[in-house]
């Protein structure tokens, strides 16, 4: 069985701004229909990576493919099949929301008027308002509407929720991604970069944590939560000597022991249990906690 061409394929990507390396040997692959998270701190190389996918930057090493195509050689074809929301959104200030959407729609083969209408209503945007008067959150909302309505196969979102207030953030995620996927659930692919990971917890199928331009960890979300666990044990007296070399992090405070493990949780749990702790609990790490644990390790 041959698997279909991935929506995105990045191999050993390199890009530097002058002498400052932004992306250094990054590889990842996004299967169609996935919601893929690119997690990293500010300056980790997320935006640069996305810009290479859109041919806004030319890779200096390695290669990127979108639907199997080289964005530098097939720019129009690639851009037709994706929609992109940059971290900084700018519109022509003299246009109204209505005019802006019409203008953006004129570049597209398709445009779902129904989705547009329902999102305008849910975001309570006034189509007659000039974009100059929109708040940052409203500007992002307009950009998101413009990205979802063309019903492209791929949606690339660069830090879509940063700078928005918590209410707007919540609503955005539920609404926009729901609306986007609704049209053709199995085939709509999303690549989203963020450092606000908690908000995307339930939406992300698979993710890559990038740091210093390199991929640090790539996993399926469910698998990640299965592997990364926090174990807490309390002993009647000072914790006994236990082989904890497999733990990612060990914290001892008084009679308590707190461990973070990446795989091997059950074995370690058994080893601790043999030392008769007063209490022993374990829970999975959330994606955000995994992010923090990975970058601090």
């Amino acid at each position, binding site marked *: 069985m041959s698997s279909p061409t991935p929506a995105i394929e990045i191999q050993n990507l390199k890009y530097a701004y002058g002498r400052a390396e932004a992306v250094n040997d990054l590889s990842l692959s996004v299967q169609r*229909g996935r*919601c893929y998270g690119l997690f990293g701190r500010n300056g980790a190389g997320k935006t640069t990576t996305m810009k290479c996918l859109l041919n806004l930057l030319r890779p200096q090493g390695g290669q990127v493919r979108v639907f199997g195509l080289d964005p530098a050689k097939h720019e129009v074809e690639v851009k037709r099949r994706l929609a992109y929301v940059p971290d900084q959104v700018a519109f022509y200030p003299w246009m109204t929301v209505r005019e802006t959407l019409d203008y953006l729609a004129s570049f597209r083969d398709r445009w779902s008027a129904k989705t547009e209408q329902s999102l305008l209503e849910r975001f309570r945007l006034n189509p007659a308002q000039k974009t100059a008067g929109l708040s940052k959150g409203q500007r992002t909302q307009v950009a998101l509407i413009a990205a979802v309505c063309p019903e492209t196969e791929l949606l690339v979102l660069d830090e879509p929720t940063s700078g928005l207030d918590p209410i707007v953030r*919540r609503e955005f*995620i*539920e*609404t926009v*991604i*729901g609306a986007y*996927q*609704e049209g053709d*659930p*199995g085939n709509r692919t999303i690549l989203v970069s963020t450092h606000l990971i908690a908000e995307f*917890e*339930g*939406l*992300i*199928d698979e993710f890559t944590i990038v740091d210093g331009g390199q991929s640090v960890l790539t996993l399926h*979300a*469910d698998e990640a*939560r*299965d592997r990364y*666990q926090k174990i807490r044990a309390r002993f009647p007296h000072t914790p006994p000597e236990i082989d904890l070399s497999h733990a990612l992090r060990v914290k001892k405070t008084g009679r308590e022991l707190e461990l973070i493990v990446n795989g091997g949780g059950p074995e370690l749990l*058994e080893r601790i*249990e043999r030392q008769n702790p007063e209490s022993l609990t374990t*829970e*999975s*790490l*959330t*994606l955000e906690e995994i992010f923090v644990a990975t970058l601090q390790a």
Partner: protein
Amino acid sequence: MLLQINYKSGKPVYLQVVDQIKAAAAAGALKPGEALPCIRPLAEELRVNRNTIAKAYSELESIGVIETLPGKGCFLKENHSPLRKEIRRKMLIEEIDQAIVQAHHLQVPRDEFLQLVQKRLEVLEERRRSHENLKVEKREG
């Protein structure tokens, strides 16, 4: 029916949905013929990927818990598993074995374990009865 996702449980999200709907059906919170929430609103409410809910629903459909009526939505089925009795037994045995292993590690002795099973069955029956009563009261009121 109220679903809740717990990311700290380590259980795949779609399985949490599957198990909670199965539990709601067993407790009578969801009745045969009753409609399940549609995929997109449920996904938005739980703030999870719509494909996760779709996966949960197709799993529930394949094990005969729910059925999809085209254009109408998903409904809880009458209790008719499509699987043969031996297979259903075997599936249950696997789950029971897991609970027995758990009991061993948590130092719950045999008698206590059996009592607990008895008690849990009663709790479930009680819950089902209270759902029944609620339905009767609603009808009378």
